[in-house]
């Protein structure tokens, strides 16, 4: 192996600073959430305590944090499942280059780049004019899908563009029906990527703010609740909440990575398919 050039060390230092820039702030509020009861929003630490975390778990005036967490969690799961199903079907559809696929493709891209507040405003207006109440599980759910599904589809595009069609042809040649080919051949191969789609579906929904702002109705999701807190809460309790919900996000991400790792390990172990090719 050749020796590292000087540029490596310069760039490595740059990268280190970038990671510090990415994670530094969140680590800071993690530390500050352990402020003593008299502590404020900035350093210095005024003692160390779990006071602000305890505050979160007590009955409180600031709002319905746990209710909003439950709603965000439920909504995240709904969005996750829908995103996976719609993205897989969409990915399969786009492989066929059906008539109208170009329009649908550009609509999907448009969904990514159109400012979120427009979706929020438009969906809110429609529900208003039809006379339906906006609710996180109906209007909020639909609005979030316009953000999560395009990401899911992009992943599916990447997956299917690298997908070796000969596996399917082999299955078909051996007499598998289309459905059998899908469930026994295609699905197991793309399964780890589906976990990726699911991760995007859940986390993007769980953290979504702009698209739910006008579509969640009278029951807030967690990001809305947190944003509400920023205007009237001036104690480290908001840092404690931020720390907890970020830890929860890390936990979810960890679970998905673990699942991907396990499923790819299982694939490596149980089947010697393709080994002869290498």
């Amino acid at each position, binding site marked *: 192996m050749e020796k590292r050039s000087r540029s490596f060390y310069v760039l490595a230092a740059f990268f280190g600073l970038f990671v510090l820039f990415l994670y530094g702030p969140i680590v800071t509020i993690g530390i500050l959430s352990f402020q003593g009861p008299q502590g404020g929003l900035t*350093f210095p630490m005024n003692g160390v305590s779990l006071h602000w975390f305890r505050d979160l778990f007590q009955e409180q005036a600031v709002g319905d944090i746990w209710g909003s967490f439950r709603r965000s969690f439920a909504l995240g799961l709904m969005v996750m499942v829908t995103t996976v199903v719609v993205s897989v079907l969409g990915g399969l559809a786009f492989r066929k280059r059906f008539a109208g696929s170009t329009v649908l493709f550009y*609509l999907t*891209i448009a969904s990514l*780049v159109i400012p979120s507040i427009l979706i929020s405003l438009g969906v809110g207006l*429609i529900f208003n004019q039809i006379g339906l109440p906006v609710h996180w599980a109906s209007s909020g759910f639909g609005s979030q899908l316009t953000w999560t599904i395009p990401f899911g589809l992009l992943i599916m595009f990447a997956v299917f563009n690298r997908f070796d069609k000969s596996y399917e042809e082999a299955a078909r040649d051996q007499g598998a029906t289309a459905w059998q080919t899908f469930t026994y051949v295609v699905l197991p191969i793309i399964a780890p990527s589906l976990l990726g789609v699911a991760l995007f579906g859940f*986390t993007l929904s769980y953290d979504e703010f702009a698209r739910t702002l006008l579509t969640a109705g009278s029951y807030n999701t967690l990001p809305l609740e947190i944003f509400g807190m920023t205007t009237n809460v001036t104690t480290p309790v908001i840092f404690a909440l931020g720390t907890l919900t970020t830890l929860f996000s890390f936990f979810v991400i960890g679970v998905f990575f673990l699942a991907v790792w396990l499923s790819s390990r299982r694939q490596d172990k149980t089947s010697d398919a393709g080994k002869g090719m290498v």
Partner: protein
Amino acid sequence: MPPRPPLSIFTKMKRQAVLQNRNVLGWLQASPLAVVLLGFLVAPIVMIVIVSFWGATEYSIYPAFQFDNYEFLFGSSVTYTVFFNTFKYALITWAMTLVLGFTVAYFLAFEVRSLKWQIGLFLVCTIPFWTSNIIRMISWIPFLGRNGLANSTLISWGVIDEPLEWLLFSDFSVILAFVHLYTLFMVVPIFNSMMRIDRSLLEAARDCGASGFQTLRNVIIPLCKPGIMIGTIFVTTLVMGDFITVRFMSGSQRANVGRLISNDISLLQYPSASATAVVLLCTVLIVIALLLRLVDIRKEL
């Protein structure tokens, strides 16, 4: 391969049938996607366009066909300032995320040598994307505040005598937050383009006597153009459509188009908000159309 025999009429018919079948199946599979996009993307946009011609009283809106909202919008000097601000944020953020994102992606793709480390460090860069933007904004407060880390550090080093006021609730903090939130959108597509570059091209460049900088300028950057474009589209549209970062990080002291819309919404002036939204949408689409002339995204996936 032997020459193909001419197709019989039956084969042709069968192919035709399959083709139609394929369309039908494709439509069936795409229908959930189409339903979501029609219901929650196309319909809302159409609704906004319609409502932008409506009228409003203090507490309600009524159907009409008038250009008052647009006249007011284009007649007000605030609009132009706010649009200028929006472009300013987009341009500065774009430049900064591009430099940062390109450098980070370059490090990952060309300087880190084992795939394991590449993936690991890449994930380190992407994980914040799956956490809450609002929390990530809030987390700047202890850094930038009057008595925050930045000020107290600078004072203790003797660089400044009294706290800098422009660190928080200013253009500076807004752009800092944008860069913090969106650099990832540059790193991922550029990294993706870089990983596809055939390494033998770099060797060839070196063998031909190109310096590191020449290789970067004449080989790597041109081949990364699609990634750079995709990142550019993401960053500019996210920044142009934003309202919450500007509101939060400027302490409501700065405005962009998104904030104009959200202010109208909070005053229940939906028609006026819709008109602004339509203009914003057109602006964003024009920017994207200009960018798309430079790259075909469908090829790049």
